[in-house]
């Protein structure tokens, strides 16, 4: 009964999405206010019905209703309750429902926070989001119904993928989807602007907070995913250039370019056509990511169950949405007037350079991700593209962008003078070069890659400080600086901190793969690891061999770690559960490999020393906070009042 209610709620949501798409768009084209007014209630109604549907799905998981195929495939009676809830988005069908729920959430949010926008703009934006909803809800209903019944019901479920039974996975997918789908708002604004022909600074200002918030969510989602991979995959790595990761990284790169380019379009009215194209590209990459992950065209370690019918549907949808928007762009873009001339040495030029580099980096990731597919389609054999390609291409591309990141925010709009900038920045540059070069010598000796990383991190941090100092020198007080400025500084500082962490962990991590008998020890990075053997341990839905490894330094016991090798009851899947000792300056990471010898109780044990890896997560957290801070800038709210004021005075006059 409950699953049918959920199914029915999705159907109503689809009908509301159709209403939300058709009536307001027609109304906006004809200037019919009644039709345009349908937009808000339809968007909110769609959101309500998807909440109902989602609640029904969670309920089915909670009560272990194995007559629902989705539950039978992805849950298990012994699965702890919290994972039964998260199992609702662990499957393809369930995650699709979360996806449309998020989309409806953003639609409802636009309907609430858009009082200051002209009616036709709101109608168009919400209408376009309705169109996207239609596609996804139809996809769900026709190819991947999360409430499909399975009769007769199996006695028990097949269990959730053990890899996903981790609390990092509880919030990773919803955050990632919030980001992915959030770019739909920027996309809808761009389409609305193209449709109405009103591509002005106001459009850029309206898009900015939405885009920045979506970007912050996407960043959060990616970081959680990376952190999960680090803890859960047992290999101690945090980024694998896997197609699924790339699928989220490409919209992130394009989205980063977009928030910078929107800044120029708002402040200077320059390169608007480029900004619109970026907004279309960013969301298109989100859709592309969905297609790549779910259609099975690429082989990935954590892809969903794949099905060519689904792939064909998403591809068709992709072709309509992206193709349609690019046709609209080609048709309308030439009519856009580009304002605001600027010299090659100006803040605009720096931001343009940053944009070009970010997109080139995105393109290189896209090429690396799709290359196996292209080769295969051309009949040129099966190949796989791995980290060596990505590291070789990506790092040299990003280094100049990071250098410019230091200069850009300190430059004046329209044009600046090179000698002037040089005087303002010469000390920062000198300090960054010297310390960057010298730091590796205090660690392990000359290392150009580490030097480059340190140089960039120090350079960005110093320029952030200079940015504050110059503002204060011109009479501003810290408390009076706008949140947009704080957000930018915080995000840039966080990036620098993260780069420092990445540099340290990439260049100075140590690992060892050893065979250990009970009582034996090994040393790494000054720490001594003593293996005390394993004991049997029963979890709620798995059996585990739990190892005991004592970590000591200079004869003093620091910490006892318990890495586990688990066998999950329902799937029989083995899982490595690493044990990590986290600290501000380094992580000590121990994972159990294979039992080597039953008699002697020897195991293959992997130990890692990861210096400063936590700095990456801290830095990323600051970037996310910076994004939210910038999106909450007063400017976006003042704009509301300015627009409302004339309306009020008119009322008084009348």
């Amino acid at each position, binding site marked *: 009964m409950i699953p049918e209610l959920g199914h029915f709620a999705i159907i109503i949501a689809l009908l509301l999405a159709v209403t939300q798409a058709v009536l307001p768009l027609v109304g906006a084209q004809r200037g019919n206010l009644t039709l345009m007014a349908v937009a808000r209630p339809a968007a909110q109604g769609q959101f309500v019905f998807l909440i109902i549907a989602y609640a029904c799905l969670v309920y089915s998981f909670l009560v272990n209703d194995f007559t629902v195929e989705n539950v039978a495939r992805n849950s298990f009676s012994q699965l702890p309750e919290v994972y039964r809830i998260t199992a609702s988005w662990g499957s393809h069908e369930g995650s699709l429902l979360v996806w449309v729920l998020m989309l409806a959430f953003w639609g409802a949010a636009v309907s609430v926070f858009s009082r200051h926008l002209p009616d036709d703009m709101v109608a168009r934006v919400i209408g376009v989001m309705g169109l996207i909803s239609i596609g996804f809800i139809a996809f769900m209903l026709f190819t991947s119904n999360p409430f499909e019944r399975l009769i007769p019901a199996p006695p028990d479920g097949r269990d959730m993928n053990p890899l996903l039974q981790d609390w990092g996975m509880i919030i990773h997918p919803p955050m990632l989807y919030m980001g992915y789908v959030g770019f739909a708002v920027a996309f809808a604004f761009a389409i609305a602007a193209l449709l109405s022909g009103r591509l002005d600074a106001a459009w850029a200002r309206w898009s900015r907070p939405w885009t920045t918030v979506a970007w912050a969510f996407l960043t959060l989602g990616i970081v959680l995913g990376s952190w999960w991979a680090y803890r859960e995959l047992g290999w101690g790595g945090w980024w694998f250039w896997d197609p699924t990761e790339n699928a989220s990284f490409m919209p992130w790169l394009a989205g980063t370019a977009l928030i910078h380019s929107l800044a120029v379009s708002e402040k200077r009215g320059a390169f608007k056509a480029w900004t619109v194209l970026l907004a279309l590209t960013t969301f298109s990459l989100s859709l592309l990511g969905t297609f790549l992950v779910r259609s099975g*065209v*690429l082989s990935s370690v954590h892809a969903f169950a794949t099905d060519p019918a689904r792939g*064909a549907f998403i591809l068709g949808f992709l072709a309509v949405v992206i193709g349609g928007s690019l046709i609209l762009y080609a048709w309308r873009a030439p009519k856009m007037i580009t304002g605001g001339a600027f010299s090659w040495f100006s803040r605009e030029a720096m931001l343009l350079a940053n944009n070009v580099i970010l997109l080139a980096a995105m393109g290189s990731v896209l090429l690396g991700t799709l290359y196996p597919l292209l080769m*295969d389609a051309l009949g040129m054999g*099966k190949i796989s593209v791995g980290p060596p390609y990505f590291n070789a291409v990506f790092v040299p591309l990003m280094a100049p962008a990071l250098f410019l990141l230091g200069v850009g925010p300190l430059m004046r709009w329209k044009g600046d003078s090179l000698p002037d900038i040089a005087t303002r920045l010469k000390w920062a540059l000198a300090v960054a070069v010297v310390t960057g070069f010298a730091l590796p010598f205090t660690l392990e000796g000359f290392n150009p890659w580490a030097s480059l990383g340190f140089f960039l991190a120090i350079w960005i941090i110093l320029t952030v400080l200079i940015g504050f100092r110059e503002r204060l020198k011109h009479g501003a007080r810290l408390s009076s600086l706008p949140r947009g400025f704080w957000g930018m500084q915080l995000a840039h500082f966080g990036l620098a901190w993260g780069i420092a962490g990445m540099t340290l962990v990439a260049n100075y991590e140590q690992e060892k793969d050893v065979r250990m008998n009970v009582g034996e020890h090994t040393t790494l990075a000054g720490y001594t690891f003593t293996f005390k053997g394993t004991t049997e341990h029963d979890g709620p839905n798995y059996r585990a061999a739990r190892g005991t490894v004592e970590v000591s330094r200079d004869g003093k016991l620091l910490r006892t770690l318990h890495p586990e090798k688990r066998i999950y009851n329902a799937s029989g899947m083995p899982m490595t559960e690493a044990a990590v000792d986290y600290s501000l300056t380094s992580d000590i990471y121990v994972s159990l490999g294979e039992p080597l010898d039953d008699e002697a109780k020897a195991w293959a044990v992997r130990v890692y020393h990861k210096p400063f890896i936590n700095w990456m997560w801290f830095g990323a957290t600051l970037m996310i906070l910076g994004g939210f801070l910038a999106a909450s800038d007063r400017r976006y709210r003042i704009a509301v009042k300015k627009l409302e004021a004339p309306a009020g005075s008119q009322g008084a006059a009348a």
Partner: protein
Amino acid sequence: MKRWIPLILFAVLVGFFAKGLFLNPREVPSPFIGKPAPAFTLPVVGAAEQTFSPEEMKGKVWLLNVWAPWCVACRQEHPLLMSLARDRDVAIVGLNWKDKDREAARLLAQHGNPYVAVPDDLSGKAGIDYGVTGTPETYVIDKSGLIQMKHVGPITPEIWEKKFEPKLKELGA
């Protein structure tokens, strides 16, 4: 013209994706195709004094099915293997891979045994010689002992009809 560039690039991508939908990225060509099946001599499940080695199958077209009692997907294909052994008289050897819990004999007694022999690869070494990446995997080996085909994942009736049957016919089984 410039404004049409994004659309053209996208159209090219869509073309590739459409093609890609009909390709299988997991279908990795095995370097063992056309090579002699690696030799091994292993004890047989349920009869520890007997051994099995691929030599014994010379002159026959046979399947080497790598399976394990702990492997859920293997259970999916088990009924199909049963019907193949019973109705089509296909010779299937079931390499019991890394069966640490010693469950194979019990399982085969309970659900039926489609295999002409079940060599017991406890250490997993024979499987590795064949380039096994996971269970189940099935190799088609011809009369002269050369590996002619490899299939990764469970065999479904559809896959059997499309992939295995023509190959077996070609090899004169």
